[in-house]
């Protein structure tokens, strides 16, 4: 179980990462990460899942929205309209010409919001039994 949940989490981050140019993205990745925690909750109970998550789902929503807002505002600081994409090219060994941009940051925000929202819906329903 532990192995499966970790695998799902890794796969979800991979989905988030490749989302910009290929199918995938923050929403799909977020859903997958949420399903990892739901799996955890199904196996070990909602309390265990909350412990594994460490922070409250609402905190995840707040962080995600904040990150998305930040990504939207970076363009404004550079003098462009809101939400304009900006990219930095990183040259790290092993991955030359790695382009990291605000859309990825925005997607990371979406990822966190989706995890938070899904868990915030499902965990209380499971605890209600």
């Amino acid at each position: 179980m532990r192995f499966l949940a970790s695998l799902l989490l890794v796969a979800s981050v991979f989905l988030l990462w490749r989302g910009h140019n290929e199918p995938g993205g923050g929403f799909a990745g977020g859903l997958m990460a949420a399903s990892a925690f739901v799996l955890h909750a199904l196996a070990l109970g909602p309390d265990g899942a909350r412990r594994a998550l460490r922070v409250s789902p609402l905190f995840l929503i707040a962080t995600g929205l904040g990150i998305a807002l930040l990504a939207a505002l970076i363009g404004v600081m550079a003098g462009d309209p809101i939400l304009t994409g900006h990219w930095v090219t990183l040259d790290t060994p092993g991955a030359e010409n790695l382009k990291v941009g605000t859309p990825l940051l925005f997607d990371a925000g979406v990822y966190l919001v989706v995890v938070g929202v899904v868990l915030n819906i499902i965990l209380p329903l499971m605890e209600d039994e």
Partner: protein
Amino acid sequence: MSGLVALPLVVMLASSVAALAFLRYPKIQEAIALTGMVALVGAAGWLLAETWDGEILVLQAGNWPAPFGITLVADLFASIMVMLAAIVGLAATMYSVGTIDADRERYGYYPLMNILVLGVCGAFLTGDLFNLYVWFEVLLVASFVIMALGGGRPQMEGALKYVALNLVSSVLFLSGVGLLYAATGTLNMADLSQRVAEAEADGYMTAVAMLFLTAFGIKAAMFPLFFWLPASYHTAPAPVAALFAGLLTKVGVYALIRVFTLIFTTDVGYTHTIILWLSVATMVTGVLGAVSHNDVKRILSFHIISQIGYMTLGLALFTPLALAGSIFYIGHHIIVKTNLFFIAGVIRRLGGSYELVHLGGLARSRPALAALFFIPAFSLSGIPPLSGFFAKFALVRAAAEEGEFVALAFVLGVGLLTLLSMTKIFVEAFLKPASGEAPAAPASPGFWHYAPIGGLAALTLVLGFAAEPFLSAATEAADQLMEPERYIAAVLGEPQ
């Protein structure tokens, strides 16, 4: 300064995120929500100042050019609406600080209020039809949760009806968007305006227009789709009911006015005649419902419906004067109606009930409150020189000029019945001797109750006694609506 258009949205999103981060500390949440709303009033004021002389500000989000990306547009009408939303949001937040219980605060009441106002502002500012749908859903989700938050059985039932009807409305809206996209290949409202005008007049567009009329009609609580409103609004706590009553149905009216002045203007003889008679029916059924009830909040709920009729009547007459009347009416109504729901909350606090039978004697014990009630109540019925008079006067004159004398007669008759039911509340709750059933030591309302009530009453007086600049702004906004070419040119750039 086109980036200004997004400022209200950024402010609201930032304050809701900040409030959400401090979910466990209600005092900090209150401070953040109040700061956010004050900042929103500032941002809206700035936006209003920039658009006051008729300039239309346009922001292409993400720097994608107009018909392809999402456009945010602030013409004068949108700026006025954002300003009103900011004022009402601030007032409701102030009232909430004094009244909302700790349970609701822990479940995210303030962040939700901010997200609700965010959705409302987004709906006012967007220039893209699908984006309008998204903003609608943002504000609906927030309102659903606020509506259901921490309530007992009646509130749950009210919320359920509200949710179900609004979901149906969203589906109709979505279907309309899909059909419109299929026929025109665009979602940008300015672009749509041109494409729909070029489309063949074979009834397809009229059918789509009717889908939009039904969808927005549900949201605006027009006849015959208003039943969800009196079934749900009065179950929520006073500040929530006030915010909903003031703002939410008006978003539906705004969308109706926007869509039926910008996009669906090709078959005015058909669509706008339907709107005319629906407006009249809305006015009449609303006011009859109000007259037949004896519960302060229910009476006020039915009055919302009745007044929605006035606002859409201006759209139906489709002249600059009539639209100016509608816009002025919306402004007047949002301020007055929110205030009346606040006062209803205070009456409940003092008298222990919303039922008129159990109330009485408030004029003797609370003369200041009686005076504060008098202003919005009689403004609502259109007594000069309060703000409601000018709004109704513009509509009456427009109706007379258009020769719609039947509608005119209904406007005047409904005004009389409004006066009747306002007088009923005034006599029963304030003048009548106390019934003796009131709690012995009523929980006394404090600063957070009187400050928003007093502020809104003062605004009502200003709108009435110094109506001239506001009327001319409404006229300018209406002129912009009647000449969609200016909107289109601002969004798509000057025609080549």
